[in-house]
């Protein structure tokens, strides 16, 4: 239990939550207007609505074109306001909760037309947990257990998207999935020029299936990596998504957003400002060697999320926070 507590609540910089909020809320207009403008298109085909279980349990109204437009155009200004206010931490609980509820409703409508996307769980979790963190500003130099729990929840959801999908493959495709022609199917249905090149070498797609299964099964390891090992894992997963995008035009945009912002020490992006606020002369190389210290010289719980040194006491070496801690 103590280990679980430490894992879930080992404090995380509040500034990381503020940065995450900005990215998460700015994503909403991008998603609704550019990446996945399905809502407005579904409004022309409401006859094909087929509600999800949760929409029926909650007695949500059958979507009309007006409801779809109202949800979309309430969400967008709220999300822009929340992103604009995120650096100051103001109104984040009220705005964040409203955004979560409206975005969830928007997804329930959108997924009730015969197709559910599987790239949203981590993002939905992020929208649900971000409002639970109080006092997160991008100039916050402190850390909080509430921030740790929120980011751990998003990390869990990111990893679940890989790990549990391995079991979905075993359930729906059987163990023969790894030796099937499923990736050939993916490329033939929606392959890009790059993807279609691989059809001449089907063994590459065959072995890629083994690679995907292996990657998904070992994905929980990412939750326990620290330092450069964690960066490497995030890099590998991001490269995987970019490769999928290049070959079959499917990109897990909100999932990748969560992968980057929940696992990386993004507070360094705004560290310059924090340093100014605290009157510190600490160098502000984003992601650089010296960027491991906090604004006022206190150690920032960077990648392992647990500070090695007591708060307020600078680390001994420049890379003190960076070493894997076993």
């Amino acid at each position: 239990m103590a280990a679980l507590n430490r894992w879930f609540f080992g404090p995380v910089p509040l500034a990381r939550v503020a940065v995450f909020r900005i990215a998460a809320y700015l994503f909403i207009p991008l998603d609704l207007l550019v990446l996945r403008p399905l809502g407005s298109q579904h409004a022309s085909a409401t006859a094909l609505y087929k509600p999800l279980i949760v929409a029926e349990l909650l007695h949500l109204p059958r979507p009309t074109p007006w409801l779809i437009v109202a949800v979309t155009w309430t969400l967008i200004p709220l999300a822009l306001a929340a992103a604009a206010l995120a650096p100051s931490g103001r109104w984040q609980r009220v705005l964040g909760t409203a955004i979560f509820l409206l975005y969830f409703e928007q997804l329930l409508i959108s997924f009730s037309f015969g197709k559910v996307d599987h790239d949203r769980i981590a993002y939905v979790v992020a929208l649900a947990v971000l409002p639970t963190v109080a006092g997160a500003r991008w100039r916050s130099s402190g850390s909080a257990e509430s921030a740790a729990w929120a980011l751990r929840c998003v990390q869990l959801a990111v990893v679940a998207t890989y790990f549990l999908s391995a079991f979905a493959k075993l359930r729906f495709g059987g163990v023969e999935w790894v030796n099937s022609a499923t990736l050939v199917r993916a490329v033939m249905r929606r392959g890009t020029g790059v993807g279609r090149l691989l059809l001449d070498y089907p063994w590459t797609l065959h072995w890629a299936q083994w690679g995907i299964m292996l990657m998904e099964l070992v994905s929980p390891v990412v939750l326990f990596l620290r330092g450069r090992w964690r960066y490497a894992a995030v890099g590998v997963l991001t490269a995987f998504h970019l490769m999928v995008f290049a070959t079959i035009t499917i990109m897990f945009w909100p999932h990748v957003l969560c992968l980057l912002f929940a696992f990386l020490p993004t507070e360094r992006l705004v560290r310059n400002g924090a340093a100014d606020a605290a009157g510190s002369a600490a160098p502000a190389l984003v992601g650089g060697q010296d960027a491991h210290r906090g604004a006022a010289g206190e150690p920032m719980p960077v990648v392992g999320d647990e500070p090695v040194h007591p708060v307020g006491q600078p680390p001994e070496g420049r890379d003190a926070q960076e070493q894997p801690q076993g």
Partner: protein
Amino acid sequence: MPPSAEPTDPPVAGRASLSARARGLRLVAAGICVALLCVGTFWGDDDAFPFGPFRMYSTSTPPNGNIHVMTLQARMPDGSWREAPLDAPIVGVNRAEVEGQIPRFQADPALVGKLVEAHDRLRPAEPRWTGARLVMRYLKLRDRRFVGTEEKVVAQWLR
């Protein structure tokens, strides 16, 4: 916490702890969600979102089997049939969504008419279709290589 109670004090370095109750509530909430996701993975389906299985590309296509691709053919005002993109900006829903509702279209071909009506609304400048049909295209594989195509009409509707 109401918005007025949100902290406005200057940023401080330090560590904000949670009460034992707040920690407990958070652990229970996370535990319930993880448990529901696991249940959904093994016993649920897509309609159990947000706790359904992550089943993207989870089915197996045999190396000597068929790849199914739903296509849409539209009847033009002159009576000729032409393949039309099965895409949301054209007919309000996309191919995967239609593929997810095949039994519904088979049971009630009038739903194909809803695609035609959506096209009327979304593409008012284009010629009005006088009918449409959903055609399943089977791309045949031998040893993971494409060798030929077959087609079968799934549902048809005429104005």
